[in-house]
């Protein structure tokens, strides 16, 4: 039960943090169509996060973060989203990286959605009915995200000389965060044995295949950058994040925390 709650948090936080990052594009996108598309992706991920956080809450994950000064009516999803410090977020560090420019964002969406699509596709067939249902809904959403961003990767990679450089730089910047996607946390390892979770080490082939198809069409090369290292063997899944997450949460949680006794 604790393992399953932790696994729900991992999947939820991956989506919540990525959604928050994408929301930063609001009113800043290069075209109105991109405003709409990026908000769509942020909304889909937020939707995934909410169901998964509630599930984690049902499994007891929110209790340790509730305090006596908090409104009792505060939902589990909000307790978990707003009253956990970054050290308790279990998302991969890819999710929290600074998106930088539009090219980097597109590289990031391609990598993120390709990976999560493979994960959700696997989850759809496993034994937990709630996770399977979340996954069934998420699969077409993620397939859309991947297609959308891949379209821009091709246009920017094979557009102007300048956009080509930025698109390559975008993949170069994202690349160091991919290694962590394929590391199995002990929680995952136990749940894989129980037939409830997808083995992250099995997901690499699918991202490799997607990029092997996409990058040549976009006239880009596969990045060669060293992976971001862990801190004493611990990474995002253990709550050891990059500095970016703490700064992001400072903003995200500010208002909710200013009024712990309130619901909205």
């Amino acid at each position, binding site marked *: 039960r604790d393992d399953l709650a932790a696994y729900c948090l991992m999947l939820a936080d991956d989506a919540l943090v990525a959604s928050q990052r994408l929301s930063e594009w609001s009113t800043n996108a290069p075209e109105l169509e991109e405003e709409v598309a990026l908000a769509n992706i942020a909304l889909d991920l937020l939707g995934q996060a909410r169901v998964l956080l509630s599930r984690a809450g049902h499994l007891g994950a929110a209790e340790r973060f509730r305090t006596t000064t908090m409104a009792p009516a505060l939902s589990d999803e909000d307790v978990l989203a707003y009253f956990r410090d970054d050290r308790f977020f279990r998302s991969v560090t890819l999710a929290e990286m600074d998106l930088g420019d539009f090219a980097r964002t597109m590289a990031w969406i391609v990598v993120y959605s390709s990976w999560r699509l493979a994960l959700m596709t696997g989850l759809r067939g496993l034994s937990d009915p709630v996770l399977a249902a979340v996954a069934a809904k998420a699969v077409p959403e993620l397939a859309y995200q991947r297609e959308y961003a891949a379209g821009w990767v091709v246009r920017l990679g094979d557009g102007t000389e300048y956009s080509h450089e930025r698109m390559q730089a975008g993949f170069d910047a994202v690349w160091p965060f991919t290694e962590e996607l394929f590391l199995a946390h002990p929680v995952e390892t136990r749940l894989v044995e129980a037939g409830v979770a997808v083995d992250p080490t099995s997901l690499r082939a699918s991202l490799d295949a997607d990029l092997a198809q996409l990058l040549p069409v976009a006239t880009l090369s596969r990045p060669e950058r060293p992976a971001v290292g862990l801190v004493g063997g611990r990474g995002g899944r253990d709550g050891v994040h990059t500095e970016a997450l703490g700064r992001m949460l400072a*903003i*995200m949680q500010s208002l909710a925390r200013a*009024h712990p006794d309130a619901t909205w």
Partner: protein
Amino acid sequence: MDHDDQLLADFDATVAAEGRIEPRDWMPEGYRKTLIRQIAQHAHSEIIGMQPEGNWILRAPSLRRKAILLAKVQDEAGHGLYLYSATETLGVDRTELTEKLIDSRQKYSSIFNYPTLTFADIGVIGWLVDGAAICNQVPLCRSSYGPYARAMVRICKEESFHQRQGFELLMTLMAGTDAQREMVQDAVNRWWWPSLMMFGPADGDSPNTQQSMAWRIKRHTNDELRQRYVDMSMPQAEALGVTFPDPELRWNAERGSYDYGEIDWDEFTAVVKGAGPCNAQRLAHRRAAHENGQWVRDAASAYAAKQATREEVAA
């Protein structure tokens, strides 16, 4: 009666009979220009209007409210898209209009030159600002220009939805903590007068109204719409438990309407002329987004051109 006169007579007859003018139809140049100006201003308002609300997306205090706000701001981008498309049927494209916006050659609704200072502002924008917009826009669903009228039908439906969401947020806050209730009243105090200004100058100072009404681009005077808005808002304020910051606001049984105080037209004029609290900020933000996106749009054009060449070669 020569050919041009005949065209004008046909146009006038269609309009008078509440018929629709379509892009392929002949229309007077003044009608076209007035429409372009009005639709562009409306489109710009949707786009600039994303900013005050966007200010709270990253800080929305619950995930449900974050989703609602994100979707609302997204809808506004969508409204901008429909409206710019409507102007395209009149022969001007989005790029040209965007440049006019960021060079201050075209306007947007002055209301968006006020800042959103608390999350209650999000509710009040939904309730009052969208409410005022709906009062202005519902009659436009019967605009004589077909593409505009059709865009407005869709937009009004979504705006009503946004207004209900805003009101629901305020109801929640009013049922919440003292701090939340204070936030709501404070937001209402700041937005009430600017929302009244959304209907434009008093009828006596609005010289274009008559022509626009004759063309069925506009259907009511500014003051008529403003009165309708005040009458509609008062019972809602009572239901919420907030007051409007106007000591002269009271029921006039004789008129069957609410009387209200004098609008600060100096403030209105200042904001329209660019000296509002956020004019410079809003335009600078929009300009930066546009300029920062230039290389992306250039790349898309370059790619499209390459693809066209490749297809030609392949053919």
